[in-house]
């Protein structure tokens, strides 16, 4: 339990961990949906505080990781057009497409810019009326309110040179797809806190009932995650398939109504492909008809792209919790954050990158975890 002293409140963490040990009488498999939670779990060694019979399965909750290769290639093709200024969140720039990534488009003279907010892209469009400004709209329900407002603003300002490549994905349909998959191993979910800040958690109640799984709305900090796991284990042991909110300081049942209204105005649900998982029905948002002019896919005729995933990469199995990252033969050898073969190695919220950065090189059973002091050296050696 070498990580316990790194918690803000070591004593509270210890109590939570002890209670989880006490509650656990059987093996349970719990999926944390959000990539931010995966990062926090591996960074803080939370999985290693748990009884060995509790397995955390790292879910597909990193938007960078699940954006399909076709979409990345479309982005690369648009970004390379001479009159285009392509704006993206920083994490997307190193995600490998079939041939290259956005960084290489930029080094070959493409105007690719990293923005913090979609509103930055609207501002760039306003200041550069002679350029076509395209924003790469990826992300879950947390990010979509921002892109929706960017579209509304662009429309109100009458901007004709602004558009978005929309690749938004939704958490509840992904949870259902995981539960419906043959051989599903997940018995309970930690739902992503900030997604629920926006959407509330009423959507999860019918899922918990229909599939008989407990779902616990959980935050991102180490203590939040331990508390989420504690509640999930308690519900599992009691055989109760309910939704509980372990992140009440930022989440209400109904969520953010103002944001939900704008989302419903701008977006409609659509089927969407997830990298590594395939098409999930009604699992994405696209622009509604009145906003189609802002759809980059309509504006730029990129045509059919034929894409080839790396034959070595097993990120699809990682995203479904079928293997752990360090069980992929390329992990840490052919595939590192500098030479990523799959998106799960690129984003800091990807499970492969989290395992790599925090030294989980061996299989889980034998993993030797470096202490905090050793980590810097360890990293230098591995990198």
């Amino acid at each position: 339990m070498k990580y316990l002293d790194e918690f803000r409140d070591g004593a509270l963490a210890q109590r939570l961990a002890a209670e989880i040990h006490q509650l656990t009488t059987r093996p349970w498999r719990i999926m944390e949906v959000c990539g931010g939670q995966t990062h926090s779990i591996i960074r803080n060694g939370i999985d290693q505080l748990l009884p060995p019979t509790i397995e955390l399965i790292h879910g597909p909750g990193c938007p960078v990781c699940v954006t399909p290769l076709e979409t990345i290639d479309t982005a690369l093709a648009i970004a390379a057009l001479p009159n285009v200024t392509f704006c993206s969140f920083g994490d997307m720039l190193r995600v490998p497409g079939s041939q290259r990534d956005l960084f290489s488009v930029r080094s070959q003279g493409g105007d690719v810019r990293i923005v913090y907010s979609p509103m930055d892209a609207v501002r760039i469009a306003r200041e550069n009326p002679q350029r076509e400004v395209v924003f790469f709209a990826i992300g879950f329900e947390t990010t979509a309110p921002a892109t929706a407002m960017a579209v509304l603003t662009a429309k109100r300002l009458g901007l004709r040179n602004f558009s978005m490549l929309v690749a938004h994905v939704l958490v509840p349909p992904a949870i259902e797809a995981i539960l419906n998959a043959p051989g599903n191993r997940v018995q309970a979910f930690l739902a992503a806190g900030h997604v629920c800040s926006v959407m509330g958690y009423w959507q999860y109640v019918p899922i918990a009932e229909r599939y008989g799984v407990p779902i616990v709305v959980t935050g991102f900090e180490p203590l939040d995650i331990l508390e989420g796991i504690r509640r999930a284990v308690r519900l599992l042991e009691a055989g109760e398939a309910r939704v509980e909110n372990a992140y009440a300081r930022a989440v209400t049942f109904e969520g953010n109504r103002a944001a939900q209204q704008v989302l419903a105005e701008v977006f409609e649900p659509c089927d969407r492909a997830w990298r590594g998982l395939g098409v999930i029905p009604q699992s994405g948002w696209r622009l509604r008809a009145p906003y189609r002019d802002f759809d980059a896919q309509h504006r730029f005729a990129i045509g059919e792209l034929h894409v080839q995933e790396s034959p070595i990469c097993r990120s699809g199995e990682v995203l479904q919790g079928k293997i752990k990252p360090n069980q992929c033969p390329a992990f840490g050898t052919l595939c590192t954050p500098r030479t990523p073969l799959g998106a799960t190695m690129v984003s800091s919220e990807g499970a492969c990158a989290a395992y790599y950065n925090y030294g989980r090189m061996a299989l889980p059973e034998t993993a030797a975890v470096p202490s905090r002091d050793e980590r810097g050296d360890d990293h230098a050696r591995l990198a």
Partner: protein
Amino acid sequence: MCLGIPGRVISIYDADGVRMGKVDFDGIVKEVCLEYVPEVQVGDYTIVHVGFAITRVDEASAQETLRLFREMAMLEEELNPEEHAETRVPPTCPLPPSAHHEVP
């Protein structure tokens, strides 16, 4: 990109009909859209995601979250991504950005 960061609202104003404000994230001040949190007032803490406030939080939990981000040296990088794009090598490295300045 997926981080939600708490900050303190230090001003609120209207920009082209949108409710905007300045939010202080532990010393880094950014312009933030407050359209989705009509209840938030100057002095309140709110969780901000890609430039949009999505929910109110209390000060104690906001401070605690900020402390964690500071320790992980993630605040600067998240809030000023373009400046850190080139120094972020590899992009997922847990070392603080300052440790990378010599890296080509």
